[in-house]
């Protein structure tokens, strides 16, 4: 009876719609992968100091040093960004709590509430948008995209999963992302951002991957806008995860107090 039962089970599996079963298996795997990626990259709170270098199409470069503090409580995200250098932007700050965003300019002497376009646009003049920054540093991708596993392949000498991420938000700036995920560390090694017309817009490379307090972290990132020929390089000089950041940090008072 046992053998008969086993044979029936095998028969049922063979006779089931082959494509659908395989598809489900792939989707589950893709979901697991992106969940693992989010666990590796995301954190409930983080402080980070990084050097941001903007490179124009002509090759000219400008370097900025910024400090980020972010925290996630339930679905409420909060981020405080301060410019430490160079002189012409030093003291500039940006506070985002939920849907509220304020910009502090030292020359103005007060904070200004700013609109959503500032959040959708480039992050401080770089090739990354605020959404890119949030996804890479805090919120992750799983809640924003539906993943599909395209294939596995070797990329720069390491085994990777290649995922296609379709945006769940109809107002996304991208039609899809293609992500190469390190199979061992569950970190994206490369992400291609495809615009709404289906053309490749930006390419992100994660480099200098290090173990920081038991967590794999890319200490260097390069985002290239292939349509404009510009690129932004981010170099992390200090990072702490799951730190206790007080509520008072994510306030306009804190923003205006400055450095």
């Amino acid at each position: 009876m046992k053998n008969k039962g086993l044979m029936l089970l095998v028969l049922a599996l063979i006779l089931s719609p082959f494509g659908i079963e395989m598809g489900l298996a792939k989707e589950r795997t893709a979901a697991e992968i992106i969940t693992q990626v989010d666990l590796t990259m995301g954190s409930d709170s983080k402080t980070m100091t990084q050097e941001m270098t903007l490179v124009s199409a002509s090759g000219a470069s400008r370097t900025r040093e910024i400090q980020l503090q972010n925290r996630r409580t339930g679905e409420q995200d909060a981020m405080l960004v301060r410019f430490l250098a160079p002189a012409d932007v030093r003291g500039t700050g940006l506070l985002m709590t939920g849907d509220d965003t304020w910009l502090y300019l030292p020359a103005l002497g007060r904070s200004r509430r700013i609109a959503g376009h500032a959040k959708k646009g480039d992050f401080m003049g770089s090739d990354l948008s605020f959404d890119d920054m949030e996804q890479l540093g805090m919120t992750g991708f799983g809640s924003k995209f539906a993943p599909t596993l395209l294939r596995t392949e070797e990329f720069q000498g390491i085994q990777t999963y290649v995922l296609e991420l379709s945006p769940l938000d109809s107002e996304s700036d991208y039609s899809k992302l293609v992500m190469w995920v390190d199979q061992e560390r569950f970190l994206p090694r490369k992400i291609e951002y495809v615009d709404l017309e289906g053309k490749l817009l930006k390419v992100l490379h994660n480099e200098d991957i290090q173990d920081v307090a038991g967590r794999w972290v890319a200490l260097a990132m390069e985002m290239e806008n292939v349509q404009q020929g510009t690129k932004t390089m981010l170099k992390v000089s200090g990072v702490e995860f799951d730190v206790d950041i007080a509520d008072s940090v994510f306030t306009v008072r804190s923003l205006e107090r400055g450095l």
Partner: protein
Amino acid sequence: MNKRLVVSILLLFVLSGVATAAPITISGSVTTDLAAGLSEPHHLHAGGELELILAHFMGDAAFRVGLKGSYNDGFGIELDEAYADYYGDQFDVRLGKQRVSWGTALQINPTDVINPVNINDPLGDKQAVYAAVVDYYLGNNIKLSGVWVPVFKPVLEVIPHPLIPGQVIIPEKVEPKLENSELGLRASFLGIKGWDFSVSYFGGWEDFPKISMVPGVPPQIQASFQKTQMFGFDVATTMGDAGLWGEGAYFLPKDTDSYYQFIVGGDYGFANGLVLIGQYYHRSGDDPTNNIILAAEYPFGLMHSARLGAMYNLGSHEYMVSPEVVFSLADSTSLSLGVQYFSSSPSDLGMPAIGQSNNIYAQFKIGF
């Protein structure tokens, strides 16, 4: 300001930093500019400015001293801002020469009445005043501010004679007495269901003196400042990708008719980085002012930007335009090229300006 005093203050701060081995940050900028008049005889103007800021943070306390040295017709140095901060659990205190910035609109703020305007640059930084400011916080969203300005500072110490060109009038001085000091109060509510708003009150002096004619042979012109009160309100919110704001103030001068000002505006950003700003400004009175203000900024080449500012008076049909291109040459180093053009006198736009002229300019600035 006395140059020796300024140098002494600088030395005091630098030496105190050395003595305590505490880090004092030094920053600032060097600006040099060249302007040429657009009309005959195309006067040239060359000048420059050094801004030096010393700042020090000590956890719950801080100080900041800003000096400005300028060379135009001659060389001058002045203490721009100099204040000390103390940060308590629920309150902040700032004492010293400072700017207090109120309002939500851009550049024109009817409720921003603590500091006198800079008559040479009415849309630029206002003049710093000696003041004591206390901000008290009720939670993270409500701020109550009190400002006390012990000594009134007028926009101008002397004003041009309205009838005799080349002559000036010295307004009657406001004595530095307690009863002549100025008081400002403001309650701000931030992030209340997507809105920021505040109500404000000011009891002090009008920025500009009242001109009156004393009968006689010949008749005498007198200028004196008058007390005033201001009741203000400002608000800001966002709607989709647009930012919206409004600000209004009702003034009750002691000896003349009351009047009000308000400004409403918004901005919108496009995916290519272009930001458009529009504002409407109204000032009531016998000769009301109604201005449309437009501005645009477009970043290009990742680090440069093009800007356009324009103002149009709906009554006089006079206008002002000021296009500018800012090239980033290196980190904290920029070259600005621009034009400032008024179709008539700035006063026809309701702007309190003296010496404004149509010109083309270049400005080179290095920050450190």
